[in-house]
């Protein structure tokens, strides 16, 4: 009984993540690649994403903090990689903020970059929290 209830909660949580636009269909692609022989594939990929995103965020922070000269091309380059990773796991909101950041880079708008960067960090942290809860729930339900 308990297990069924937890499974339903996990399914509901998953649906909400899609409905609220945190995840897109690429996440389903990852799920389709998971099987009994590779039961943790999705979680492994997500973990890789969080290692990468921490690094990207750190590098952007360093590049933005440079008060003398701002290399928009470098910022754009880092964000392009970050965007690629978020796209690969289906992190829709994070990806959108990355795109916005790149727009500001192309326009050479530093304030816009800094503002959007806060959004990127926020969306990244929010999704991380939600996915961690989701995976935990799934573990408890199995």
């Amino acid at each position, binding site marked *: 009984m308990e297990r069924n209830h937890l499974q339903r909660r996990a399914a509901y949580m998953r649906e909400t993540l899609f409905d609220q636009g945190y995840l897109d269909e*690429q996440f389903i*692609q*990852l799920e*389709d*690649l998971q099987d009994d022989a*590779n039961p943790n*594939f999705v979680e*492994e*990929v997500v973990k*890789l*994403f969080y290692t*990468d995103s921490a690094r990207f965020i750190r590098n952007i922070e360093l590049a933005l903090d440079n008060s003398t000269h701002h290399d928009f091309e470098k910022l754009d380059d880092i964000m*392009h*990689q970050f*965007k*690629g*990773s978020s*796209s*690969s*796991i289906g992190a829709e909101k994070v990806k959108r903020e990355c795109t916005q950041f790149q727009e500001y880079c192309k326009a050479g708008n530093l304030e816009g970059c800094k503002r959007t960067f806060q959004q990127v960090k926020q969306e990244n942290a929010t999704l991380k929290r939600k996915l961690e809860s989701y995976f935990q729930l799934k573990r408890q339900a199995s």
Partner: protein
Amino acid sequence: MELNSEADEDTKKEQEQKEEEKEKQHFHVLAVDDSNIDRKLLERLLTVSSYQVTCVDSGDKALEYLGLLDIQESEISRTSSISSCSSSSSKSSEKEVSKVNLIMTDYSMPGITGYDLLKRVKRSSWKDVPVVVMSSENIPSRITIRCLEGGAEEFLLKPVKLADMRKLHSHLLNTTNIHDTIIDSDHNNNTNKRKASSPEDSDRRTRIQELPVS
């Protein structure tokens, strides 16, 4: 006769599928991408599709694996775990590498880009190996055109999906590799020791020039 035809159709289809799976297991794909997430994804996509996969994280490593680095370069990168390069000429290194039937490469990578890699491969004795370029930029523009003009057989938009794997198979079947593997499987199914394509093969191979149908 009529009563059996449907059952025959089913077993025939099953047999065809089994044969296709068997063919695929002979195919070795070299995947090149600097993103560890994308490498993991590619590795899984290709494995699920029954191909053998080798993933490398840079154009340099890909060239090394294919034995296309010159002697100086190969000595510098000796620390790499890929053991294909010997201290002799690059020609003999090529023969040590197990066959590669398809190369999939990301377009934008630091150092040697996917485009650079494409050009290097197409200039080499690996030139008949199909090269697929992947990129997250979806403007069917300079990247796509540039790569297709550069000799790439296919362009894939990232993130790469399971459905894209079907496109690979058609490129693999277009080469004469399939003849090699069928002949080999007749001789007790040994693994193909020589590389899949060689300069002599290019003469009897017809190149499919038009854009692939997706």
